């Protein structure tokens, strides 16, 4: 097990290193931030002075080296726009995004798995067919449109829920969170459901497919032949088997949740990383974009690592292969 984790850790470091290279040089191709920052009337001397101040007059490989050295010290550069450290800017907005993403994940698992298992156990009932049709809608309706419709119905017409913002936050371990106050929760609900819709459909379908496959296995019939209650057969014997694909996909899709939150955050004016990155891309604020991408890469790599470890906890057969490897 520890050999497995160490090996995966080294692979992860290699991925981060390669990504930093691609991100850094890729962003240089996109455009020159000086054009955006400087007054169009400025003369050559002003432009050069500005470029020198930002370190943009040095050759790209030198800038990369400088970036790497600083990155190791935990410094990902200063925002051209805000003048604040890029990392700090992102970290300030991260809790909002993570809260939203976790809330969405929680909803999609909490609703998706029971729906999927139910329709897998009773595939021919009307309820099951309704669930399946619903999941097609969840897949195919665009997130931003659903978000706008939700605001229309629940905020504008019915007036039940607030349309934008985070609401009242309270600190939890020094991090501001919304879900602990009633006001915050009412602000969180709509964006979380909006972001969760796609994943919920995915989880429902995975759980249903898994259930339908597993219930016909001999070991399920054997479990019933042992005289176990239907409850235990479903909750232990079926559920633990279908969790293997579900956990894999949920884990891999968690990065997607954070990425997709860009859309939801824009629609609901949720003050998270997604909004920041959209603004930074518009202003070509290189350090913020690079820092955001690096953090996203780190998150993806970490999530994948966690999923692999979790997977081996769920599926004992994976564990054995690692001992052999």
């Amino acid at each position, binding site marked *: 097990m520890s050999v497995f984790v160490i090996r995966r850790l080294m692979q992860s470091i290699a991925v981060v290193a390669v990504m930093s290279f691609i991100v850094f040089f890729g962003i240089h191709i996109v455009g020159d931030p000086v054009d955006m920052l400087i007054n169009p009337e400025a003369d050559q001397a002003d432009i050069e002075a500005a470029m020198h101040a930002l370190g943009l007059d040095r050759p790209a490989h030198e800038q990369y080296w400088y970036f790497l050295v600083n990155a190791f010290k935990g410094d990902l550069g200063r925002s051209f726009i805000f003048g604040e450290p890029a990392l700090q800017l992102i970290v300030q907005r991260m809790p909002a995004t993570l809260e939203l993403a976790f809330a969405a994940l929680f909803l999609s698992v909490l609703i998706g798995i029971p729906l999927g298992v139910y329709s897998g156990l009773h595939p021919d009932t009307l309820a099951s067919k309704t669930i399946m049709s619903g999941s097609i809608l969840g897949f195919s309706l665009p997130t931003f449109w659903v978000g706008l419709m939700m605001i229309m119905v629940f905020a504008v017409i019915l007036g039940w829920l607030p349309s934008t913002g985070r609401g009242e936050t309270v600190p939890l371990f020094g991090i501001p969170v919304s879900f602990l106050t009633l006001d915050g929760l009412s602000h969180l609900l709509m964006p979380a459901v909006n972001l969760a819709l796609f994943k919920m459909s995915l989880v429902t379908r995975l759980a249903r497919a898994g259930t339908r496959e597993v219930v016909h*296995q*001999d*070991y*399920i*019939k*054997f*479990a*019933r*032949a*042992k*005289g*176990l*209650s239907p409850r*235990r057969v479903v909750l*232990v*014997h079926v559920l*633990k*088997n279908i969790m*293997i694909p579900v956990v894999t996909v949920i884990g891999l899709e968690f990065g997607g949740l954070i990425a997709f939150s860009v859309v939801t955050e824009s629609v609901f004016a949720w003050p998270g990383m997604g909004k920041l990155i959209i603004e930074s891309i518009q202003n070509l604020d290189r350090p913020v974009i690079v820092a955001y991408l690096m953090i996203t890469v780190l998150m993806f790599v970490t999530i994948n690592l966690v999923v692999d470890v979790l997977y081996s906890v*769920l*599926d*004992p*057969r994976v564990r*054995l292969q690692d001992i052999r490897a």
Partner: protein
Amino acid sequence: MGSNAPTLRVEDLKTHFFTKAGVVKAVDNVSFSVDRAQILGLVGESGSGKTVTGFSILGLVDAPGRVVGGRIEFNGEDIANADEGRMQTLRGNRIAMIFQDPMMTLNPVLRVETQMMETVLAHQKVDRKTARQRARDALGQVGIPSPDERLAAYPHQFSGGMRQRVAIAIALLNDPDLIIADEPTTALDVTIQAQILFEAQKLCRERGTAMIWITHDLAVIAGLADKVCVMYAGRIVEAGAIDEVLDHPVHPYTRGLIGSVPSRNRRGVPLYQIPGMTPALLNLPPGCAFRERCPQADGACMAEPGLSVPFDGRAVRCFHPHLEAGA
């Protein structure tokens, strides 16, 4: 437990599958009984209804199948129409089943320990420690070395033969009155097969457990069972004491089956083959189901033969049983 009543008596059991294409009579008017410490061999080809008979007794026939008639008397109680709650208390407790493929019967993601302990805990009010001890003892009984360590293992860490032993240990956990073994040795190699057969017989005799041993292999039950029922197309075609049936089969199908087993006494002679194939059970034509493949078939066989008793201790479903002495 009734002292004289058989552990299990099945009477005119009918299990039909209601498919879109029609009714499949997988089990049709099957009757037999098993006493304490007795082993009944249920022999037949694939699709002859052996396994469905086993599942019918446990009340585990899945839709679109259903037990549509007959009595299943277990220790004097009719369980053919018992409710699910009653069946749940019997399954794994008084009636246990061992499945054909040991690679598929154990849940791959649960420890052997969990799968054994839940069987005890589902039926008895004991604490987890006692349940674990029972599980360990049962593993020891079926000949699994160092059972304490093996309990914590997962099914994939066992070989096929060992997994079948685990399945047998699970069946034994609650000391059942009846064990239904559905071709438990088919997937195993011959040496393991012999060990399992020996142990099954020993346990049956020692504990007085009644056993139904389902198989397609006459050789397997030749030394194991006390009596045998030969099934063909969902019906019992011949039943009797195992030695007598093997020595003097009277139904043409049984005769064909025995004739097609390789034997040392007929070296060099080509093996007998039953011509044709098992009929599809869907919309079986009227009359004797074996008619088309039978060398003795004539006009009489267009009607359905009843179960007759040509001589004491034998039942046969045929108009032309082979009654001359010697085979």
